[in-house]
């Protein structure tokens, strides 16, 4: 008689993964132990003898890594294959190979689609709500607390089941059909537009060079001319008339270049930004050319 997993076992396996995938993350097996915990209820139900269970558990605590929210499809696929194996179809090696093959694409999709696009997008929407409702700024975070975990749980569970039902071939067929590429490409367009707008809205960087000349200025309060200064050359204003916010844009592209082309670590880039900020602030205090004096 063919063995079929109980729906409860599937849910238990999914919950084990969803909540505890990062619990014991480390450099040796990455999410391996967490994957093992996710597979444990499945293995317990499918196999009878201690030897069979040991063999199955061993192959699921090995190196595994993915973006775990979208990567739940891997668990679904592995469970489907393990179920087939218990019914005498397939080999243990093919399950291993499938897992290793899934690490790359699922990490890439999860990181670029979910982590780098959906999260910043949702945060930005909540942020806009908070900034516009100054007296009720708590609405933004509250919305995020409700929408993000629930939405992600639903998505993650759906693609977990998809992996289980469609299996490796089904998921690969879906990937090969170009449908997924199209979706990713379309979401990337959305992501690029949003990141462009975010850069323009939130990255600020001033060169703080503002050469002033001493002159008499009209003082509204006293209705008289007093000693003061007017700006004759403001570098930021000049650059902004050429292309608005060109300095923040240049800084962002420079960071991108350091990160992708020069392989600088984010922490090192951060230190560079700290130094730049210190230098630019210091320029602002230089007599006769600084913006702050």
């Amino acid at each position: 008689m063919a063995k079929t997993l109980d729906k409860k076992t599937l849910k238990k396996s999914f919950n084990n993964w969803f909540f505890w995938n990062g619990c014991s993350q480390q450099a040796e097996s990455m999410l391996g132990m967490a994957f093992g915990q996710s597979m444990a209820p499945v293995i317990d139900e499918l196999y009878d003898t201690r030897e069979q269970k040991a063999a199955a558990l061993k192959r699921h605590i090995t190196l595994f890594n993915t973006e775990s929210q979208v990567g739940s499809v891997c668990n679904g696929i592995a469970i489907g294959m393990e179920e087939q194996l218990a019914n005498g179809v397939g080999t243990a090696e093919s399950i291993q190979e499938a897992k290793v093959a899934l690490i790359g694409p699922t990490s890439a999709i999860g990181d670029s689609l979910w982590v780098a696009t959906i999260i910043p997008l949702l945060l930005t929407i909540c942020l806009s709500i908070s900034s516009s409702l100054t007296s009720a700024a708590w609405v933004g975070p509250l919305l995020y607390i409700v929408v993000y975990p629930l939405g992600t749980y639903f998505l993650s569970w759906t693609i977990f089941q998809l992996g289980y039902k469609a299996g490796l071939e089904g998921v690969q067929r879906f990937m090969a059909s170009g449908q997924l590429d199209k979706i990713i490409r379309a979401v990337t367009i959305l992501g690029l537009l949003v990141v462009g707008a975010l850069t323009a809205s939130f990255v600020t960087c001033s060169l703080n060079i503002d050469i002033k000349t001493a002159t008499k200025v009209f003082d509204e309060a006293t209705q008289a001319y007093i000693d003061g200064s007017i700006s004759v050359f403001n570098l930021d204003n000049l650059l902004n008339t050429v292309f608005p916010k060109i300095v923040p844009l240049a800084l962002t592209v420079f960071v991108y270049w350091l990160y992708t082309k020069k392989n600088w670590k984010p922490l090192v880039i951060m230190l560079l930004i700290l130094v730049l900020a210190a230098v630019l602030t210091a320029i602002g205090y230089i007599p006769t050319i600084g913006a702050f004096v």
Partner: protein
Amino acid sequence: MTMAQVILIALFIYLAAIGSIVGNTIGWYCLGRPLVASFVVGIIMGDVQTAMIVGIPLQIAYLANVTPGGAVAWDLSYATYIGTAMALAMKGTVSSDAALIGLAFTGAGIGGVVGGTMWNVHYALDVVLNRWAERIAANGDAKKMWMPNIIGGQLIGFACRFIPAVIVLMAISAGASAGISIPDWFIKGISSFGSMMAALGMGIILSFLIKKNYDWAVFLVGFVLVTYFGLGMMSVAVIGVLAATIFYQIIDRKEAY
């Protein structure tokens, strides 16, 4: 800060870390986001209004703080919980919102460094758990498979995060009682650092998104929608969804990839 507030905030610093007991979706990606973190600290310290004043710029600076491949450069949960707590604890010493935000970034800097170090300790210690997991697997004890992952991982995680957080928060609390004030030039510098930091996040996000050269043009369309047309983020998001829908319909797979 009272001791109870210190303990509660430290508890949330642990919960909002990568791999805490509530899972990364609820922890790192939700409680760990500065917008949410400042809200939580605001509730604990009884001043949500002030907490949100610093939460918004912190969220902007760390908007793109994601963790590609588990490489934590900057520990967000440590940074923002401690940053907000510091701003609220020392708000009596400053007179403007800008100075308050400067305080938050200072606290975030301290927290980020401590947190980043503790994450590396946590990551290294977890390796030992593999031996435990291997032993359970070899015995075929499927029902015990959760123990190294949850008991082991959480004991190490809790120790690495909760205890240092309590120490840092108590130090800030003591500093606040001693009445430390921060000079104007420092606040100007740290505020400009905060807004330049947003460039780091954007640069890293771009590294995920830029696949083809013409992607730069799409990115710049988003940029000029704000600089030339003055659109808000909500409007750009709507335009983005429409553009993505149209793109999806007209795209030819071979051309796109």
